[in-house]
């Protein structure tokens, strides 16, 4: 508890953002998976991106890496890395950018290792594809990286099947670190793992971040994990960011009804046990999203009473507005009542 109070909330606005998304829009055919998203990631911070399945969080990661698969395409907006727009760059420019500047650990990445290659050779593959490095030097560096993520350096000769799921996931993180990128995207890196392993990996990511100074875009459906590990959190719903704030602020003063509902969907492990209700209904079909605020059909504060508020909720798209320094919410109710 005290740790929560003492955790420093450094104003990071003075440093220019490492990565800036400006009005990013991604379409899969008729479905807008990501619709006009603005998001900043600053140097050395852990930004948590949370939301339910198909809210667009993985699509954002793929758009940053420029690895969207057809029919997915960027239909608008910019992906600025140190002010340089990645949208429209050539394949060769992107190849250099990936891994050197940004690396990504995919969902169930532990299954992304090549089953017939030793761990060491998979490091070599990634390293030699991006920089001129001698095999012996590369392997030595790989051994050091393995130790950094808590794996015995002798495992460099192991095949993936000889490692547990948690170890394979750590190998993937070590490979992602190999080229010393400035940003690492972790897409549900611990979802398939047990809580004990999950915590160990998260602690390792945090410790490595201190040493290497990279920033992390951490994507997950598990808000409770983000509350503990992220510096800032962005909540997505149906292709839009509906709230962003420092983690402490989300934990204690979330204002968007969706964020509040999401937080109330996790039963507590300690303290009194109340009946929870979750959020009624299900996320919308993005080929045909609801008019106005996309959350309005599920929102407990949207009542058909003929009021001006109801009219706005159902016809006007809310925009992100700052309610406190570093805390922005896209909600008509918050805007009108000023809560």
């Amino acid at each position, binding site marked *: 508890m005290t740790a929560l109070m003492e955790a420093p909330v450094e104003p990071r606005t003075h440093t220019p953002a490492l990565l800036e998304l400006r009005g990013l829009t991604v379409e899969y055919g008729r479905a807008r998976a990501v619709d006009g998203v603005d998001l900043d990631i600053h140097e050395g911070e852990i930004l948590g991106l949370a939301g*339910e*399945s198909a809210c667009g969080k993985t699509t954002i990661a793929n758009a940053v890496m420029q690895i969207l698969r057809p029919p997915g395409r960027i239909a608008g907006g910019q992906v600025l890395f140190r002010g340089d727009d990645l949208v429209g760059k050539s394949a060769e420019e992107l190849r250099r950018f990936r891994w050197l500047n940004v690396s990504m650990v995919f969902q169930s990445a532990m299954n992304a290792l090549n089953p017939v290659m030793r761990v060491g050779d998979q490091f070599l593959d990634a390293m030699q594809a991006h920089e001129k490095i001698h095999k012996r030097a590369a392997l030595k560096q790989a051994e050091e990286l393995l130790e950094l993520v808590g794996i015995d350096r002798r495992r460099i000769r192991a095949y993936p099947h000889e490692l*547990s*799921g948690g170890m394979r996931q750590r190998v993937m993180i070590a490979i992602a670190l190999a080229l010393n990128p400035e940003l690492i995207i972790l897409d549900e890196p611990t979802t398939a793992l047990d809580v*004990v392993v999950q915590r160990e990996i998260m602690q390792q990511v945090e410790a490595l971040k201190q040493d290497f100074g990279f920033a992390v875009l951490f994507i997950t459906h598990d808000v409770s994990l983000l509350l*503990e590990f992220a510096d800032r959190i962005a909540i997505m719903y149906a292709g839009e960011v509906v709230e962003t704030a420092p983690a402490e602020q989300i934990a204690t003063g979330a204002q968007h009804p969706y964020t509040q509902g999401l937080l109330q969907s996790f039963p507590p*492990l300690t303290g009194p*046990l109340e009946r929870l209700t979750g959020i009624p209904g*299900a996320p919308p079909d993005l080929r045909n999203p609801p008019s106005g605020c996309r959350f309005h059909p599920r929102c407990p504060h949207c009542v058909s009473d003929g009021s001006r508020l109801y009219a706005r909720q159902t016809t006007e798209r809310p925009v992100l507005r700052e309610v406190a320094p570093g805390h922005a919410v896209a909600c008509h109710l918050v805007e009108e009542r000023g809560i």
Partner: protein
Amino acid sequence: MSAAAPLEVRGLTKHFARVHAVDDVSFELRPGTITALVGESGSGKSTVARLLARLHDPTSGSVLWEGGDVARVRRHRDVLRYRSAVQLIFQDPFDSLNPVKTVRHHIERPLRIHRMVPHDRVEERVHELLRAVGLVPPHEIAAKYPHELSGGQRQRVSLARVLAVEPKVILADEPTSMLDVSIRIGILNLMRRLKDERDIAFLFVTHDLASARYVADDLLVMYAGQIVERGPVEEVLASPLHPYTRLLLAAVPDPAKRLHTERIEERRGVAAAAVDPPEGCRFVSRCPIAVDVCSRVTPQLVEARPRHAARCHVTAPDPERTT
């Protein structure tokens, strides 16, 4: 209490070659209660559910139900009777529903096969069941195909189908882990309501301690094929006996404890301890409080507190053990 227990598991053991997936597991499933079975992947918790569903034959041990050992039942009629009384629902409802059949078909089928209601009442019963699991309006839902439903709705269809045969026991194997968090609570609430209204005994297999606490009355903690702790859920979580339960509790994300507050010690052993396990405690290589005897003698499940038992020489010592 045991007289009213519809299902009693005694010394249940299942070995797959050298892997002791389930070893000497004992517990009861009582009507109108939810028993949560938690553990990491590979701990054997799903195998327990599958053994109770008779999808595997146990290596040894018994499953006592209505006075007989169902693990040994061979007569087709008895197997059918047991299978309709003890129903299994799976993690991924999409896999267990036929994509080219409507919801109505899925619920009608068990009603007809087990002759639960007369022909002219089937439609009415389908609608009743859909309402019971919160799928309304039932006539609209009944006409839909699985792909037209959300994950939560599909899991509700699985539950309605299982309820069609009026089971005494429902084995729910990670029923919420594939669902979005905002929808999980709805399924958990539904389980709570069904156990109260229909006096059903639930086995709720999960890796999520918080969900277990939310719905369950009793908690079983499995590690490497064995139950290492057993007791009323609030009691176990408030004052856990086994060091593995303590480790699990410390690992659950908690917004109130930011990083660095308590580092979990290095994981030296892995859960694969159930392959040709030697004599001794299976948690010993990861245990912060192990003593000499732990690596020599396998601890038994000892009731150190009323209804609260653990397999640990240190926190739940066996009063009858000498040495």
